[in-house]
């Protein structure tokens, strides 16, 4: 559905995107993850034909963005970071205008507008002026604008930025509902968002892809270190020290009074050692379990390691 090869973009001397290559299959939901300034927005602007790339190619639905921008633009819906809204327009009029410039046939527009207004929960505000809407509703109108022509590909740049937690949950729910019918690329620098919505994640840092895989694979490959969570019946002062003295243990953190997180090297099966120690000292094990690395940690690992390489 989306094929990107060696995409490069210079802003003057500054290289915003370096040799980006990736592909997205039909029906997939892919997350673009990266810190601010990583090149996510630039990549999306190139995919949507707003910017021209300095080098490389991008094909969407079989059409090249550079050779055939009109066809590409017909098949995509784009929600930039700031929703592109005409503040002085009425919600419904704005959506009709969006449909028209997407070259929809006039007779299909009222129906499409109704459908999208219901889908995005805009019924209450359809007759109101966009300027007067809350940020959450504006974001919904932005999403509705991107969806009204029922595009095959949906490109969403930081769709939940600047929203309050309740609005974030609502927008995420809305996006999740769309995953069944559209191929979606979504960018974010907020990890839980990607975990909540995407099947696959592409991590970008300083214009380059540093990792690209499904969340499960990323989770396992990134586990150079393991962490174990230990809960005990007894508390005590010596416990943290005793645990730290075990071989292969890197760090022990006290989570609660009788709860510890133990960071250790992978593949040494420290559970046995810890259990033995706990039995010998009569600490009373309540629970001992491996904690999987969160994507947040993966992300930190990836970007900090990359920074180390660069410096």
């Amino acid at each position, binding site marked *: 559905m989306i094929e990107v090869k060696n995409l490069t973009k210079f802003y003057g001397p500054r290289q915003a995107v370096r040799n980006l290559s990736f592909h997205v299959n039909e029906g997939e939901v892919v997350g673009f993850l990266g810190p601010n300034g990583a090149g996510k927005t630039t990549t999306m602007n190139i995919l949507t034909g707003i910017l021209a790339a300095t080098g490389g190619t991008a094909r969407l639905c079989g059409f090249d963005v550079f050779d055939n921008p009109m066809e590409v633009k017909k098949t995509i819906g784009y929600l930039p970071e700031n929703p592109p809204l005409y503040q002085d327009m009425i919600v419904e009029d704005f959506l009709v205008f969006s449909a028209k*410039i997407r070259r929809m046939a006039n007779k299909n527009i009222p129906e499409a507008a109704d459908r999208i207004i219901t889908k995005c929960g805009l019924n209450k505000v359809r007759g109101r002026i966009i300027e007067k809407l809350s940020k959450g509703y504006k974001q919904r109108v932005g999403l509705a604008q991107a969806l009204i022509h029922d595009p095959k590909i949906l490109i969403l740049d930081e769709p939940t930025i600047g929203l309050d937690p309740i609005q974030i949950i609502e927008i995420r729910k809305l996006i999740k509902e769309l995953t069944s019918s559209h191929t979606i690329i979504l960018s974010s620098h907020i990890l839980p968002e990607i975990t909540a919505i995407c099947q696959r994640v592409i991590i970008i840092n300083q214009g380059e892809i540093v990792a690209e895989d499904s969340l499960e694979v990323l989770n396992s490959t990134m586990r150079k270190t393991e962490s174990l969570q230990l809960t005990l019946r007894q508390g005590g002062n010596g416990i943290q020290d005793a645990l730290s003295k075990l071989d292969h243990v890197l760090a022990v953190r006290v989570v609660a009074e009788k709860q510890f997180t133990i960071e250790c090297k992978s593949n040494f099966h420290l559970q046995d050692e810890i259990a033995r120690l706990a039995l010998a000292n009569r600490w009373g094990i309540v629970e001992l379990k491996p904690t999987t690395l969160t994507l947040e940690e993966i992300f930190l690992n990836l970007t900090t390691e990359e920074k180390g390489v660069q410096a």
Partner: protein
Amino acid sequence: MKAALLIAKRDLGTYFNSPIFYVLTSVFLLLYSFIFFNVLSLFSFESFRAGQLTLELGMDLSLNKMVVEPSLRNMSFVLLLLVPVVTMRSFSEEKKNKSIFLLFSSPLRLSDILFGKFIACMTVVALMILLTTYSMGFLVWYGNPEIGPIITGYIGLFFLAACFVAVGVFTSSLTDNQVVAAVACFGISLFMWLIGWGAGAAGKAWYGEVLQFLSLVNHLDHFLSGVLDTADVLYYLSFVSLGLFLTYQVLESNRWR
């Protein structure tokens, strides 16, 4: 072209749903009317005096020369002041609030967007100019001016206004700051207006005539005196085309920066 009209229609909605159009038109009409009635009262004073003296003197008094021409010439100056305010928002505002991304990511050609913006501004300015025809109606009702020069005068004003609009659309494509866009438009328009003054300084040198030809307002004089010359029409059309061409280049080059 259909797409251009869509964009023009949307832009016009913004003008008509906000106070911009009404305030601009009111100011424009007030200024023009003030000029017109002053010119007219001067004329009536002159003709009254001529009537008291000799009949022959009165025969030289022409409504066209003494009322229509100066009124329209002064209107062109009011347009110079106000057209930048009409055009300043066309690209600048969309760039500022990012709505331009909607247009750029839609299946529209850059030329559609550009013509849409131009048509919208031109419609507003044309409406403003058309509203001033009440003054000519007044003259026709109570006097008998020649209709020909009035019509060519208005045609000339439309062409001149189109030049200002082209400059304004161009300057607003350069910046996301409306004030900068307006000031730049005013500056360029006024310069192109005054460029003929250089002809005086150039004396008999060959470029004196060139400067004279380049001046926006010299061509208007021909229209005002009732002459429809293809050279003047071509000059104005080239001016507008150049403005739009440059705007297109700016928009296109923005994609590469």
